[in-house]
């Protein structure tokens, strides 16, 4: 009885594969679906069940964010105190705020005027523009997206059957893979592709053939103090890792607790199995 169930189930799965394969083939010729190219795979330290941050990489990524991206992109859900998670000390965070003269609105004073005060570690990252309209006005009408969650908000579809395999391989890095691929993917538009004025061709872009942001990074643009290669490739990896941290700051905590829970559940399931077997040993079923 059980056997026939399993046989039938396998049959169903086989038929589904065939069916989906032919359905996918019919996609050709319909509306184009972006991205044109699937993201490249990067080896991330935070992938897999024992994933962890490479703190040096996150610090480099933060340097890129500070020197390049933060001119246009806000990161409103992250606070300065969170930088301590990248391995900076509290004093370093305070020094960062002081060096850059970061200020936020103070409480209204006795006359009802809102003055500026120096930011504290508990304050959230100050956005580069007062509001979305100002951000658009300064960027040719395109709103630079907030970085806080971008690594989780940009995950191109994996498609069948990859998404099935992903469950077993634990692939959950399509966000940073996408960002890395986008940053390294700017190129000349092939003949026949129409690129609107003020946009830049990139086959990895998720929502069209070209995007408003020009290639933001190039070799040698940011100086690294730790001897890491100052290349576009390395910059793109570092900023992607940093953005993953910004989007999922509890990733390492989650995976390490997950491992303990898994071990417990497996042991518990084993004990339950033998208990069940013992109890059922006197009943034919």
């Amino acid at each position: 009885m059980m056997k026939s169930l399993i046989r039938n189930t396998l049959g169903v799965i086989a038929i589904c594969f065939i069916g989906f394969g032919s359905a996918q083939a019919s996609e050709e010729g319909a509306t184009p679906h972006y991205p044109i190219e699937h993201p490249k795979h990067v080896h991330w330290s935070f992938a897999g069940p024992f994933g962890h941050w490479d703190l040096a990489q996150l610090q480099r990524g933060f340097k890129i964010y500070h020197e390049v991206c933060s001119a246009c992109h806000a990161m409103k859900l992250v606070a300065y105190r969170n930088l301590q998670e990248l391995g900076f000390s509290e004093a370093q965070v305070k020094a960062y705020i002081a060096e850059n003269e970061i200020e936020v609105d103070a409480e209204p004073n006795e006359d009802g005027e809102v003055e500026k005060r120096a930011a504290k570690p508990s304050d959230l990252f100050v956005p580069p523009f007062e509001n979305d309209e100002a951000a658009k006005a300064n960027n040719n009408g395109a709103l630079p997206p907030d970085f806080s969650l971008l690594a989780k908000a940009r995950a191109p579809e994996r498609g069948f059957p990859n998404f099935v395999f992903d469950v077993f391989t634990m692939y959950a890095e399509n966000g940073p893979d996408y960002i890395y691929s986008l940053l390294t993917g700017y190129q000349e538009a092939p003949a026949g592709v129409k690129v609107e004025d003020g946009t830049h061709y990139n086959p990895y872009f998720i929502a069209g053939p070209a995007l408003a942001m020009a290639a933001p990074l190039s070799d040698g643009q940011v100086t690294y103090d730790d001897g890491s290669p100052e290349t576009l490739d390395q910059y793109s990896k570092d900023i992607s890792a940093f953005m993953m941290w910004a989007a999922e700051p509890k990733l390492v905590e989650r995976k390490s607790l997950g491992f303990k829970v898994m071990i417990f559940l497996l042991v518990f399931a084993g004990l339950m199995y033998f208990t069940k077997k013992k109890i059922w040993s006197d009943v034919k079923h």
Partner: protein
Amino acid sequence: MSAKASKEPTRRDFLYIATGAAGAVGTVALAWPFIDQMNPDASTLALSTTEVDISSIEPGQSVVVKWRGKPVFIRNRTEKEIEEAKQVPLEELKDRAARNPNAQGEEADTAIDLNRSAGKDKENWLVMVGVCTHLGCIPVGQSGDFGGWFCPCHGSHYDTAGRIRKGPAPENLAVPPFKFVKDNVILIG
């Protein structure tokens, strides 16, 4: 199960006990996140210090600032108030503990006026959490039978050093951890 099994521990008993124990351990471990989630979160804890500029507070004036959401009284006491507080013998106090984590030196835990204030040479400064130690109302300043604070909720009287003198409150008004970071700036928390 059967009478046979109960005579001596068997492998079966061991298995049942181990399974039951594992289930119990799992349940207890699961309880912790449910409790801990109610504790203050990281952003609340990050706000636990407050800096105050006290240069504009004249003798006889007080300000109220917020620290961890609670009112903190900062009073620049007059000579008269300090003198009054110093005159009170310890035996007359209802609560003889200083309730001041910043007090230093010998007998730092007694409620003499020096230990209640900001310390030597700064005895004019009184910094206290403005929450009545009875049931949490905010006392009114410069009133009551002792010229200090008076809590209208249930009638507790505090003197000019914030010590409980009369009424249902059990303890002196608490002094928060604080220090002078500059001559005219204090950091509470």
